[in-house]
């Protein structure tokens, strides 16, 4: 694990938990710089980090884990999301990927279907490469939106207060 993952892994976990909070409360549409809009939803896998070394990680799979009593309990315990399978959509393109928040790596990524207009293998490769780059750009842009909110001086009195109510509710 890199030094930044050791010291700031919590920030990635706060980011992932914030996505869930925004998805449930604001509908999951995020306005990104440059006028882009991306839709984000949490799919069928989520892992809560262990609050301490003595406690265990908790993974919920299949169905709608965000709607389960176990997930609500984890939030009330102040647990952050460590990993979650996300659905990301921009325009007609949709990706699914599992974000490991501590390292900010993407696992199990599935790209959108190949564009209809691609005809050659070279075109298909270029189209897929563009989609790989795009999904990383989307996650990085979302993270930037989160950071600009998280690093505001009044964050604890504003955004965090709202999220705290949601987590305790």
């Amino acid at each position, binding site marked *: *694990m*890199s*030094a*930044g*993952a050791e*010291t*700031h*892994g*919590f*920030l*990635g976990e*706060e*980011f992932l938990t914030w996505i869930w909070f925004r998805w449930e409360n604001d509908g999951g549409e995020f306005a990104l710089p440059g006028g882009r809009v991306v839709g984000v939803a949490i799919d069928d896998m989520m892992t809560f980090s262990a*609050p301490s070394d003595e406690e265990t990680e908790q993974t919920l799979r299949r169905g709608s884990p965000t709607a389960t009593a176990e997930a*609500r*309990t984890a*939030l*009330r*315990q*102040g647990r*952050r999301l460590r990993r979650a399978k996300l659905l990301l959509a921009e325009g007609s393109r949709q990706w699914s990927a599992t974000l490991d*928040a*501590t*390292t*900010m*790596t*993407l*696992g*199990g*990524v*599935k*790209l959108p279907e*190949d564009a209809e207009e691609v005809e050659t*293998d*070279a075109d*298909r*490769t*270029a*189209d*897929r*490469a*563009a989609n*790989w*780059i795009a999904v*990383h750009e989307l996650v*990085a842009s979302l*993270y*930037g939106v989160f*950071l*600009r909110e*998280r*690093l505001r001086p009044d964050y*604890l009195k504003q955004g*965090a*207060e709202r*999220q*705290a*109510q949601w*987590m*305790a509710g």
Partner: protein
Amino acid sequence: MAVFRRSGGVATFHWQGDLPDPAGDDFAEALRQRRFRTIEDAASEESSAGWVTPADPTGDSFGPEDMDAGAATWLRFRIDKKVLPKKWLAIHRDAAAKAKGRPLSGRERRELKDDLADKLLPRVLPNVNLVDALVVREKKQVLLFATGKSVRETFTKLFFESFALVLEPSDPLQLALRAGLSPEMNAELERLQPVRWPVDESMRRGRRTPGSAAPRKQDQETGTEDDA
């Protein structure tokens, strides 16, 4: 021509400094210097790693057209490993022990293993692992399509040996520092502490009591370690 994958896991890296133009001769020459070399017939080498291209798994050619992926450059490297079959080793060890009428000493076991490696490795075909990466030169970013530690280490070493550039793995801090934040926010990042979210202690200790999961007063819930 091969087609780039549509699914998988990715580790992201960034570098600082200048990478040669992937369409130019310098780039191809850098790859050629650390091209893959086969160990198919080797007796002593147990592994080999080096650059190949999606069109040529031997490492003999590095045409820019074979690495063109539109907005990115498609790098591929190959890791071959020869592994001495464990069961063969056990069979020979048992036979030697039986011939001596006693278990082999540590030194004898090592000597037997070295001897067997010399005899058997030339006859063992290596396991072949082809690993892909997308290089986005404008962003100084590499997407590596492998998440295992040893493959990542092999890749960063190869990249450094080829281009004299150190790859930094992406993580929440590195990604934040590349997010175009204000200098004040970047400074704040270094000092940042986790938010301490509401915790229902009785639930956490497994002694849940009626009503303990009810929403708690906000003014006692939110704060950071700094506030404590």
